[in-house]
């Protein structure tokens, strides 16, 4: 159990002259949950896309379940290699609407990765889809619906069900609850928490929201301008932030004791770096 299921080492991604990701690295243990916290332009989403194989890093490596899946020596990946990557790691996006075929029922969409990755009869697949819908708290009726007939929260549950179908080792969630209403967000967060406890799956949870990251992760990295500025146990980061940027992020979150002057002081401390 002491080998990481996912490792990123010195990841760099350049788009032309812009360095979006600059030396990012971390280890994710089986069953663990890692947060990547940052604002727009921090490089958090590019990092997530590299992990999922949607972007190729300019340099650095990604190792998934003991196999290097991105970086040096990995060129022109075969269909087989890509399938294996997807089988082990699935990604969930902020807007599930864009990731479903609008003309296909939810149940058919959930069955698709099964047909691709898991051999079995149509009947077996149907049974598995029913099980998955139940696991994420969706009714059979929701399964027969088209994506547009479901609410945002239901669609995000469906996206989770589809990702879980092939039992991946890692789930990368990019702002997966950011577009949901508070009461629905809580439902999806508790669902994700329960699933991790039941299945031992690992999460990379990408978010701008420290409160949500606190709830769903054990450790976290804080990114700014493509670099990791602070890393550690999530609870420690929140209670005792060391980097001025982490402090600014934390103090910027509204609360009944919100002190906007303190936010301004944090900003000056950061600019003075």
């Amino acid at each position, binding site marked *: 159990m002491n080998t990481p299921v996912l490792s990123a080492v010195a990841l760099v991604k350049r788009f032309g002259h812009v360095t979006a990701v600059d030396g990012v690295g971390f280890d994710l243990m089986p069953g663990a949950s890692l947060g990547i916290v940052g*604002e*727009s332009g921090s490089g958090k989403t590019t990092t997530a896309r590299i992990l999922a194989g949607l972007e190729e890093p300019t340099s650095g490596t990604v190792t998934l379940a003991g196999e290097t899946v991105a970086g040096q020596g990995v060129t022109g990946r075969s269909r087989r290699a890509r399938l294996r990557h997807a089988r082990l790691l699935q990604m969930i996006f902020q807007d599930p609407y864009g990731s479903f075929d609008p003309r296909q029922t939810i149940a058919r969409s959930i069955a698709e990765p099964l047909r691709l990755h898991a051999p079995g009869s149509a009947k077996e697949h149907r049974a598995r889809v029913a099980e998955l819908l139940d696991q994420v708290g969706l009714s059979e009726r929701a399964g027969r619906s088209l994506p547009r007939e479901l*609410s945002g*929260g239901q669609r995000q549950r469906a996206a989770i069900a589809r990702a879980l179908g092939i039992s991946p080792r890692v789930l990368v969630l990019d702002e997966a609850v950011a577009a949901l*209403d*508070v*009461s*629905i*967000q*809580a*439902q999806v*967060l*508790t669902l994700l928490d329960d699933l991790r406890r039941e299945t031992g799956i690992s999460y990379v949870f990408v978010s*701008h*929201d*420290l*409160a*949500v990251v*606190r*709830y769903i992760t054990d450790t976290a990295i804080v990114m700014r301008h493509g670099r990791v500025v602070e890393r550690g146990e999530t*609870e420690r980061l*929140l209670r005792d932030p060391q980097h001025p940027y982490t402090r*600014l*992020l*934390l*103090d*910027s*979150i*509204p*609360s*009944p004791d*919100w002190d*906007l002057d303190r*936010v*301004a002081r944090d*900003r000056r401390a950061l600019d003075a770096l």
Partner: protein
Amino acid sequence: MLDDKPAGEEATTRRDALDVARLGLTLGAGDGAVPLLADVTLRVGRGETVGLVGESGSGKSLTARAALGMVPRGARATGRVTVSGVDVLAAGRRALRDLRRTRASMVFQDPRASINPVRRVGDYLTEGLRARGTPAGAAAERARELLGQVGIADPAGAMRRFPHQFSGGMLQRVMIAGALSTEPELLLADEPTTALDVTTQAEVVALLKEMQRARGTGMLFVTHDLDLAAAICDRVYVMYAGRIVEEAPGRALFTAPAHPYTRALLEASPSAHGDRVAIKAVAGRPRALAESPSGCSFRDRCPLADDRCAEAVPAHRTHRASAVACLRPELVSP
């Protein structure tokens, strides 16, 4: 007749920036009529910051827009909306245009969707002033001054730039400068910081508060973020399914919510501060007025509901610091 004048003046200084009384909104007529808002009553005093909080479909944006006479096509409004003395629902197009130009402004969530992308920022900012008869030179001077106040470096250069040359946070500052350029009595801010990064949000909110305080503008701050509302508002109204279910001072709402929905929202929100506490999900999903059950709209998701809750929409009653539409607020916060 002479005696009436001072009394009239006093009434003018005391009148609210916004007064909404039993506002109802219905789309269509007859059997197919869809109710959107029911019995919305709220007020914003001069210089006061008032929060309007709710999830999707709660009607918070509809309420804010109705305050400036913007009702959806085909919708029928009932009740009364008064903005600095003008009866908005009865006002004609000219009176409304005049009102929006001078006494009431609005800031929206996405600044890029509410500014003309092919016109320079300077034109946008001087437009309102010019329409009020301010000479061009003075209007430009005033616009530069405002840009400086909202923290834009090089105001003169900014006047010549186009919206796409600004970041989201900077453009929202421009919008705030524009909204306050006419010294309005009322500012309607509809999720003005939702599209911004959290550190930018803090800066924009600080700016909004400071500008509003300095001018004595009344602000209705519409948001889905209960923490944000409680942090900056003097009073907060919580909406659910097209109705106001609770009104309380910002702080009291946090420490002693009186409506089961308010408490459920607080318990569902994870917090980055204080001790780590488990979050509690609320069953079901937020509803619109048209799909809500009879009686109390929240009763099908409420852990405290019983048969009495189905009988009628609960009237607002006072419980501690709140005015709450619930039959047993003492069970929510004793």
